[in-house]
């Protein structure tokens, strides 16, 4: 008798959260999570609709890989080429432009590489590829890492292989932490940078180049591919973000008076 009771108790404790599915899983990026935007949107969306948003924050590459396995209802990332490929391969119905900000180059304020007054980002990348200056790469197939790779390619130089090119393999904010310790340059999205709390003597050294545009897309995972996707609830979430109150929330989200993300309307 006691044995059955104990078994039942453990069983309920184990399964307590898995029976009903009144939530959607959003595969998203560390930049939206580290800034606190994702938590805010989840809470407000729940208040408006009663649908819970469970947001998983990983790099864009991991998020897309997870969504391709069917582990998510909505994909919210920033690597347009990969997003379009995701849709093309039949994993998503359609990609919508959700919001944008831009990338910046952050580094120690004494700016040893003197990139502050350079005119375009390609010039900056060529300077930073020199073994004299440390540069930290995310190296995790995140949206930011993909952007960095495309910048190397555009500037026509191969990715540095010497020891001044450091691969962190961590999330965006963790990588800025490392840049801080090593006093090196790093490419980051502006949102994460504004929200980052441990800036010390790092500062933005290069910004406002057209190539540094950083668009975020949103895609509902195709129910044709994975029948258990919460398609309707996910669409309500996407609508809410594109046209509803979510759009205003993104637009009005500030940290220390600075806007982090911009929507298109």
């Amino acid at each position, binding site marked *: 008798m006691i044995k059955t009771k104990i078994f039942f108790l*453990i069983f309920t*404790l*184990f*399964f*307590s*959260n*898995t029976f009903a*599915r009144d939530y959607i*899983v959003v595969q998203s990026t*560390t930049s939206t*999570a*580290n800034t606190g935007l994702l*938590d805010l949107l*989840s809470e407000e969306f729940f208040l408006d609709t009663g649908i819970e948003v*469970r*947001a*998983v*924050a990983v790099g864009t590459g991991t998020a897309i890989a*997870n969504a391709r*396995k*069917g*582990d998510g209802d909505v994909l919210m990332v920033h690597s347009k080429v990969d997003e379009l490929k995701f849709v093309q391969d039949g994993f998503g119905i359609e990609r919508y432009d959700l919001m944008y900000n831009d990338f910046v180059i952050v580094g120690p304020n004494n700016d040893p590489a003197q990139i502050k007054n350079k005119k375009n980002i390609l010039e900056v990348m060529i300077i930073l590829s020199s073994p004299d200056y440390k540069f930290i790469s995310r190296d995790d197939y995140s949206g930011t890492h993909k952007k960095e790779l495309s910048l190397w390619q555009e500037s026509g130089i191969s990715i540095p292989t010497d020891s001044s090119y450091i691969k962190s393999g*961590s*999330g965006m*904010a*963790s990588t*800025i*932490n490392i840049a801080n310790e090593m006093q090196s340059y790093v490419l980051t999205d502006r949102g994460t940078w504004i*929200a*980052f*709390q*441990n*800036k010390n003597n790092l500062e933005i050294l290069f910004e406002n180049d057209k190539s540094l545009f950083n668009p975020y897309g949103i895609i509902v995972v195709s129910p044709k591919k*994975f029948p*258990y996707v919460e398609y309707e609830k996910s669409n309500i979430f996407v609508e809410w973000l594109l046209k509803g109150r979510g759009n205003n929330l993104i637009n009005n989200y500030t940290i220390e008076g600075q806007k982090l993300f911009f929507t298109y309307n």
Partner: protein
Amino acid sequence: MLDTSKVFEAIIISLHVSFVSTLFAFSISIFFGYLIATKKFILKRYIVSILGSLTSIPPVCAGLIVYLIISRSGPLGWMELLYTPSAMIIAQFIIIFPIMVTLIINYIEREYPQLRDELISYGASQKDILFLLVTNQKGIYLTTLLIGFGRAVSEYGAAAIVGGSIDHVTRNMTAMIALETAKGNILIGVTLGAILISISLIISFGINYFKNDD
């Protein structure tokens, strides 16, 4: 900056997940520990060695294995376990079971031979011997529980992969520490770490209290 309701939530999630995984692992460890320690069978030595080596399984690796199994495209995908506390329980179970079972096998292998000869001459059954092995030396089992729980509650890699660090659902203490540290809030990270250690300290005191009760 530090939202107390969120910290409280994270503590509850940490305790819930780690208690259940420890209880699971403990009951199964006693069962298998007793079987392996008292029975003679082929490959016994190899099984014990393999269990011993699994005590050093990297949590991230355990997390990945569980992820592949419970992912939507994995064999148990239909159970919808990914990104739930249940997934974290399974992952922690895999990490702490080898540790607990190895400790228990060690203890029973040492105690059982003398105890058996003595007790069988009194007419005791196998069941009685098992019962005595468990009740006689409570301390060893309590220590095993403590070690298992400590490893489960302090673990981050596996719980993060299969739990996803989802706010209100699977963001336990270690996930919250990692997130706050990543945001650059290093002091908050350290504070949360101190809270986690304090909780473990209370549990450790409680267990030691029972131990000295003998």
